[in-house]
């Protein structure tokens, strides 16, 4: 797990514009590995049936997490509470959200606890709400949330469902200064099968390594992702507004080179959610849409989008779990307020090339 910079780059790509800045998490990971040693990456198949997996994520306001950074003791307090509840210590840490900051920071948390990191996560990307995880889609009960804040408070919530889980966790987070560490859907390896998205840490690492020292990083990244390039061009307009605690907006990209004359519009809400060209949807959530720099192929966050940037927009399929009826109900276009019937990106892109 020495390859933190590659992991951070990969997590930024999987963040689809959101998930928070990977830099602080990467610094924490490097520091924790220096202090506590390497973090082994384990596959779900390698864990005994009753091994306890703790999905961890930081929740709160991005502005706050850049200022009031996590303390080193937070993971230990969560782990101790989990052990108190289950009567045995956790066996592995898992990232709840591989996209963005919450993809990298679990390396630090695992190192601080001396535990392995599970090669899996709960999203395969980034989503803004607590219930938008594979464990919820798989039907696991959202009946336990353990949170720790920076001063040492530990809060255990026994919610009746996923929506209450989101509501109560958010309230605790705000009281704690809009920044907390959270474990939810603590589960055994047996229950995790089919309920987590496997191999995503490895995938993030591979994505990050794909652009290392190559002549054409963008082409290399596109190949590694198996992504369609929706457009290559220039950002000509970014409009943002904050409603209901979320930043929404629209970004317009005008094609250059072979794409001259084309215009792609991206709908943003923390993440890049829908790509539209000439009134036709080209890709939509839960499929992944990431804006990258044309030269470095580094992912650009929605808040980093600026006029004049030379960018390519890549889109590729999400995990099949998100394409099930429950998956689409949880994180499909309608879950974000778009009146669209979900069509997989492969089909949208194919139609385009035929037309």
């Amino acid at each position, binding site marked *: 797990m020495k390859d933190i910079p590659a992991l951070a780059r990969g997590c930024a790509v999987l963040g689809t514009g959101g998930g928070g800045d990977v830099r602080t998490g990467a610094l924490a990971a490097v520091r924790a590995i220096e202090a506590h040693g390497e973090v082994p990456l384990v596959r779900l198949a390698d864990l005994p049936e009753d091994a306890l997996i703790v999905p961890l994520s930081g929740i709160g306001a991005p502005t706050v997490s850049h200022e009031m*950074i996590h303390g080193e003791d937070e993971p230990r307090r969560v782990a101790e509470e989990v052990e108190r509840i289950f009567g045995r210590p956790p066996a592995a840490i898992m990232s709840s959200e591989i996209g963005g900051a919450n993809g990298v920071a679990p390396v630090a948390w695992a190192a601080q606890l001396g535990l392995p990191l599970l090669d899996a996560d709960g999203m395969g990307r980034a989503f803004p709400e607590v219930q938008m995880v594979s464990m919820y889609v798989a039907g696991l009960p959202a009946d336990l949330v353990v949170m720790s804040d920076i001063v040492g408070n530990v809060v255990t919530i026994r919610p009746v469902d996923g929506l209450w889980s989101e509501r109560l966790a958010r309230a605790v987070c705000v009281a704690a200064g809009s920044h907390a560490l959270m474990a939810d859907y603590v589960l055994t390896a047996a229950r995790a099968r089919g309920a987590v998205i496997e191999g995503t840490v490895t995938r993030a690492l591979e994505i990050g390594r794909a652009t290392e020292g190559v002549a054409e990083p963008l082409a290399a990244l596109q190949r590694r992702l198996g992504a369609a390039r929706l457009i290559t061009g220039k950002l000509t307009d970014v409009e943002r507004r904050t409603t209901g*605690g979320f930043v929404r907006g629209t970004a317009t990209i005008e094609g250059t080179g072979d794409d001259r004359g084309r215009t792609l519009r991206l709908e943003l809400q923390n993440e890049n959610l829908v790509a539209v060209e000439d009134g036709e949807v080209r890709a939509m959530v839960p499929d992944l849409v990431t804006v990258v720099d044309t030269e470095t192929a580094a992912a650009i966050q929605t808040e980093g989008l600026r006029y004049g940037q030379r960018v390519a927009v890549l889109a590729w399929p999400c995990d099949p779990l998100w394409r099930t009826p429950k998956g689409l109900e949880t994180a499909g276009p309608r879950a974000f307020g778009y009146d669209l019937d979900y069509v997989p990106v492969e089909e949208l892109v194919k139609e385009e090339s035929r037309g």
Partner: protein
Amino acid sequence: MAEGDLRVGIDVGGTNTDAVVLDASDRVIAKAKRPTSPDVTRGLRAALDAVLAELTPYGTDPAGSGPGAAHAVWSRITRVMLGTTHATNAILERRNLGRVAVLRLGAPATTSVPPLSDWPADLREVVSAGEAVVPGGHYVDGREIGPLDPDAVRRFLDGVAADAVAVTSVFSPANDEHERVVEELVRREYGLPVSVSHELGSLGLLERENATVLNAALYTVAGHVISALTTALAERGLPARPYLAQNDGTLMTVEHAARLPVSTIGSGPANSLRGAAFLSGVEDAIVADVGGTSTDLGVLVGGFPRESAAAVEIGGVLTNFRMPDILAIALGGGSVVRGHAVGPDSVGYRIAEEALVFGGGTLTLTDAAVAAGRLPPGASGWRERLEAAVTAADMSEDIRDTLQRALAVADELALDAVDRMALGRADRPLVAVGGGAFLLPARIPGVSRVVRPEHAEVANAVGAAIALASGRVDTIMPAGESRSKAIERVKEEAAARAVAAGADPSGVQIVDLLEVPLSYLSEPAVRVHVKAAGPLAR
């Protein structure tokens, strides 16, 4: 002889140190250019002497010329404004930096990323006298994370040997109380200079902390610069008050600069943008500062530089400094032409010997521009020398062809850079300044016209001479009903800071007010950034 004050502006650039003298009605009455010396100070003195020498005849009537005449003019110089790279060079070369005790107030928060985690090892080695995270700091809403522990501060400082202390408290832009208490403690009990983060940066703990530590490390360098400047003025019998230019194109008194030396970093591009605005009379424009090796493009909004939204790296350290949004491209008068390519290498200051137009043997971008009829004002003999050199060569047609193609490549690079900075707006002019301003084409798509003002080659020194003093505040406040009152308070604070930096209280205006709503907070909150600026007090 004209009455009134004279001002000297000096700008130390990578290649040249420029100096100008402006009269009371802001006319450029003397200018000079000298090579920048490795120690910076020698080039500064040379440029100052050169501009003073040029000034001497001005306003001196023939009958009055004599040993005393020069001093009669010099005595009218009331201010000297300096923009310098001393601080930048010190950080880049890791020289003359002070050892800093790095103190963060925020434990148990923030301990997962200790101070200086992201610093290059060599810089950290030179600068850090030790680091500690002790209890203190505040939440986003202004509540204390925990009480300050003065004994923890003392225990840390008792164990380190430092030249200065840098103090960064969590959310100090919203509540600076703990930083102030520790600052007072360190001064009283340890007698060390203290750099406090709320005076320096905005939200983003690590970036603000980095800027604070760099600032503390630069106290020695700031002392050198200020004493070099004041000594140079005293030696020449100039009764002028000295000022230093900062990264946003405004000035600060030397007393202020001694506290905030890191603010001098990035003053060069800011000065050239402000100078371009002043010389052209255009307040909203794209500015291209064309030098010998590179061209810096920036944008003027209301006469001030548009600031970069991205974090700025200084010597490998990320800071949240507000710097002009600059796009630098490797294109300058000395860019070497070969095949159909231009640069990125340049003959630099050797252009005066190496370019064909100066009788040398290297094809440069200057030669390509002159071949196409683009010449600086007052250039004599350039075309003839170029024609002679090309005609004498074996393959003169090939050379002509190469120069022509190279210029097309260079124009394309410049056009693309202008387009990147223009943000889709095509109604603004392009102001071309710097020694290589003539290299740019007369028509550029994406701008309304190309303006090449008089004295363009010393725009940066002019920018220093005409600069205002400013102050800024960046904080978080509730978005509710109390908002407008709170914003008034922030405006007053920014104005007070401008006055502290040297502005005339009666002339201070709010020049920038930015409100950004914050996401994921229960209580609606906004981040407010206010900047006030005004002319220097008499």
